[in-house]
């Protein structure tokens, strides 16, 4: 019985702290991944970086002055995470911006710009890390943007504009967190239940606050896109 109370209060503590957690809950911290997994995720993400960079270079070769715009686009993506995002539960957090970025700049450009932003977050505010950059870039600069882009492209015209944008942004946010949970589960399987149990575990820890935040980010992105359309 003692244990039960211990666990319940522990659970409550987790919830409370997670409600007030920093903006970058989805960043895997430096040192959190074993070396092989860190390398593995770099290997996964590097092809995306190469193709994305080639696209970028083609754009800039065409119009050299566009590098200024790219600089500002990366800065915009970085600064976007300083916006306030209210959660349904009353606390507030910050948007990931992966969905909006993919809709505005396309998934290939985002794979490079998003990775620059992640590198900057590691080097400017020590969020995330250098050895975990591959893993973080895969979830936030590749999977999130691609999910958003495919929904945006696939459903445009079939669903109302707002619904398409909402789904793109909310699911980009959610898919990023699913991938992060998977990355953590693979690196740290549960001693009893293995990878599956571990995935459920990391998943539920995040899910409680992540689903409301994904909904909020979806709504925020719809409002931003509406405002941009009238500009």
């Amino acid at each position, binding site marked *: 019985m003692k*244990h039960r109370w211990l*666990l*319940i209060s*522990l659970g409550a503590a*987790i919830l409370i*702290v997670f409600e*007030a*957690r*920093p903006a970058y*809950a989805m960043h895997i*911290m*430096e*040192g*959190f991944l*074993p*070396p092989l997994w860190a390398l593995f995720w770099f290997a996964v993400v590097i092809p995306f970086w190469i193709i994305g*960079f080639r696209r970028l270079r083609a754009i800039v070769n065409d119009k050299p*002055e566009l*590098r*200024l*715009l790219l*600089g*500002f*686009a990366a*800065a*915009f993506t*970085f*600064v*976007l*995470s*300083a*916006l*306030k995002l209210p959660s*349904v539960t*009353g606390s*507030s*957090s910050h948007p990931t911006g992966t969905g909006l970025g993919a809709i505005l700049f396309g998934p290939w450009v985002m794979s*490079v710009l998003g990775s620059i932003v992640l590198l*900057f977050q590691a*080097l*400017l*505010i*020590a969020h995330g*890390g*250098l*050895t975990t950059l591959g893993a973080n870039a895969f979830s936030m600069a590749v999977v999130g943007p691609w999910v958003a882009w495919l929904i945006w492209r696939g459903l445009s015209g079939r669903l109302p504009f707002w619904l398409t944008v909402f789904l793109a942004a909310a699911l980009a946010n959610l898919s990023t967190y699913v991938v992060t949970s998977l990355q953590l589960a693979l690196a*740290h399987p*549960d001693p*009893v*239940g293995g990878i599956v*149990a571990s995935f459920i*575990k990391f998943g539920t*820890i995040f899910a409680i606050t992540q689903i409301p935040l994904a909904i909020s980010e979806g709504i*925020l992105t719809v*409002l*931003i*896109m509406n*405002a*941009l359309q009238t*500009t």
Partner: protein
Amino acid sequence: MAAGDARIGDMLRVIDRYAFSNRLRNVDPAQKSGIALATILLCLLLDRPLVGWIATVWMVGIMAGYARIPLHVVIAVLTTESVFLVLSVVGIAVSVGFEASEAALRLGPLWIGFHHAALPLALQVFSRALGCTAALNFLVLTTPLVDLIELMHRLRVPALLVEVMMLSYRAIFVLLDTLEQMVTAQTARLGYTSWQSTLRSSALIGSRLFVIAYQRSQALEQALIGRGFDGDVRVLPLSYRTEQTLWLIGILIFVSLFLARWWS
């Protein structure tokens, strides 16, 4: 540095200020990143709790004692990160399964509890990540991003990437100033007072900031054309000194980490 308010700007500026004003500011970024990265790799590869703890002590020591960054700043940054780290590690310590473990709580068909093998593992991951994070903090708090971008240029990172990074580092501060002005203006007009008004306020800024980012880039282009911009961003390199003592400290760190591995 709690969540909620736009604290990202505060954190960015505080860290940036020390990066530009610490005693190791003019030391070659290659030297500082070399030591930070080697420490991170050793923590990962040697992978023992004691190694992580010793690395943490070393890094806090050289940040505060050698680079002369106030100890309370060093500790504050590291504490914020360790709170976050503890939460991630809880995920490892707690196990979920269809069978009860030693101390477990039933939740539907699942049992949530601690497994005897999980606690040491959690401790190991925590100390490893703490050592790595402290080493990253050393790099971040002693080395401004301009220097790291310059280092990437020396390491033959493609010029286009280096230029985009250089421009966006500057643009981040320009846009962040604008964002904070807008947040203040909105707050003075009762923005952010409810769930809806927070969403609305943020959305207005998000879209406006996008337009401003575009306009700023156009204005900058015009100004740079006046200074001979033809597509390439040419700048003079920065000059650095090499600090012999830092190499010596680096060697001491590595030796002590190896020793820690054999002792434990």
